[in-house]
């Protein structure tokens, strides 16, 4: 699913250079559940941006679903994000002025799917996260856990093979957090590849494999027993 070879990301700040990623290589198999863990400043966020096709590396290769994507242009990356990756962010990142269903429909709009089909897919995704009765609520009318579930529905709507979750429980209380984690497991069981980025060891342990990153390098890769 994901194969990253010798990836570097170097930022130049005046005379200094910062090696946010310093030769990272790893792979994720289809339908695998992988955690990437590391303290802040470890290059974790940069790596997530790379996996999410939000940024391009300074050098190195990145094969996503069999396709080399590290040297694509902005608009091509947008299309990859749209079709291959479902994002779940720590702060939900829903548009506040539109309803839950409109939020879920957004990626489908950019895919160019017609109105009826779009509505059907969005309702399906919202029902799957248990919010079938709240499709016309605005984010501000929903609790944090419900908002995160809307975000999951949005990530699922376009049926991408890869779900990229960045601290998905970071802003939630433990009960809502564990519900969200349960949902990630369900997605995993339904065949999605899940990449969870976190700094929480307990969360990371729920995955099949943990990749530990520090100072832009992978320092440890463990299968979870």
């Amino acid at each position: 699913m994901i194969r990253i070879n010798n990836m570097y990301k170097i930022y130049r700040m005046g005379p200094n250079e910062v090696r946010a990623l310093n030769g990272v290589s790893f792979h994720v198999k289809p339908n695998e559940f992988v955690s990437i863990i590391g303290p802040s400043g470890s290059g974790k966020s940069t790596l997530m941006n790379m996996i999410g096709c939000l940024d391009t590396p300074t050098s190195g290769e990145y094969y996503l679903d069999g396709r080399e994507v590290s040297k694509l242009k902005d608009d091509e990356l947008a299309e990859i994000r749209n079709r291959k990756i479902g994002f779940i962010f720590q702060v939900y990142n829903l548009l506040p002025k539109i309803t839950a269903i409109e939020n879920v429909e957004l990626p489908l709009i950019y895919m160019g799917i017609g109105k009826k089909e779009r509505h059907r897919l969005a309702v399906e995704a919202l029902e799957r996260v248990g919010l079938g009765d709240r499709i016309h609520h605005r984010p501000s009318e929903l609790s944090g856990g419900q908002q995160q579930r809307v975000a999951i529905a949005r990530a699922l709507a376009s049926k991408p093979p890869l779900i990229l979750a960045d601290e998905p429980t970071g802003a939630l209380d433990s009960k809502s957090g564990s519900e969200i984690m349960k949902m990630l497991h369900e997605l995993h069981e339904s065949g999605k590849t899940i990449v969870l980025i976190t700094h929480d060891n307990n969360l990371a342990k729920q995955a099949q494999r943990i990749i530990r990153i520090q100072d832009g390098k992978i320092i440890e890769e463990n299968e979870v027993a």
Partner: protein
Amino acid sequence: MNWIQALKMALKSIASNKIRSALTMLGIIIGVCSVIIMVSIVEGNTKQITERLKNMGTNLINLNIIGRGSTRRISESDLFKFAEENSDLIECVAPSVSGSVTVKAGNKNVTTSLEGTNEAYESVRNTKVEKGRFLNALDVERRQKVVLIGTYIEKELFDSMDAIGQQIKINGDIYTVVGVLEAKSNSSEGSEDNKVIIPYTTAKRLLRNAIVRSYSIQAKTPETVNAAMKALESFLYKTFNNDSSYRVFNQADMLEQVNEMTQSLSLMLGGIAGISLIVGGIGIMNIMLVSVTERTREIGIRKAIGAKRRDILTQFLIEAIVVSCIGGMVGVILGIVLTGVVGKAMSIPASPSIISMIISFSFSVFVGVFFGYYPASKASKLNPIQALRVE
């Protein structure tokens, strides 16, 4: 993403910021509205003047005696003699003495313009009599105190009564009404129907005016207008020995001048109003830039879930165009309404000019595209990572 989808998004976003959108539109509304009003008023005014000139008759040559730079004088009889000698070119001559007078009948009085002339005026100035008769040669010769009144005066002084044979006082002197002039426009106060005509010989006394300075001369045919003008000019030159003592011009020249003047006036006023459209456009750009900054996070989210540059560009551009289009439409409607109001207030027959509507509306759309493009392109080039980081 298709255009309809983008349009829906734009409308939603405009609707969610009603006051701001309305204020942004205001610039465009005022711009479009003022262009339409300005151009329509000027056009209405031109139409009015042109109509007046046409009403004065064709084959018409006007002569003004300025009398500057010469001690010599020219009298009515000199001109009548000249006309007789050139009867192959000139049909007739109507002298004109004019002034402002008060006319009174019973207890009603009206201030109006008086013109003293002779029997030739009827054909020279294309003036028709509705009731009664025009002046005749005898009235002029005997300095009769007879008067023809315009329809406005008739309406004001006599209302529904028959005016013919009635007596009116002009500046205190008693005159007998012998005729009512046919209406040349709408019988309103500001129109040509607010006037009285008396024999010029009588008028010279009434207005204490010894010299007639203005003449209307009718050429035999439209073809002889130029020849008649030449003959008249050489005759005058011989009399005055210079060419600054008099001015000869014909109706066609005047029409042309009026048209030229009003055309440049229309362009100027339209241009000034157009500047307010540009100012309105800058307002749009300003608000769109603020909007892009404010919605950085929204743009980031949209990009993260798959919006391409084009999608974002279209979204913001359409928003700007929709704002300017709605502003333009409201401006056109307001312009139509206000043109009527202002026209009435200024008693100018102004009808909203279609061309000014089309031009100002398309200009407002253009303004939307032009001033919306920069903010939209700025939005579309935002980096999703940085945009998502903004709180």
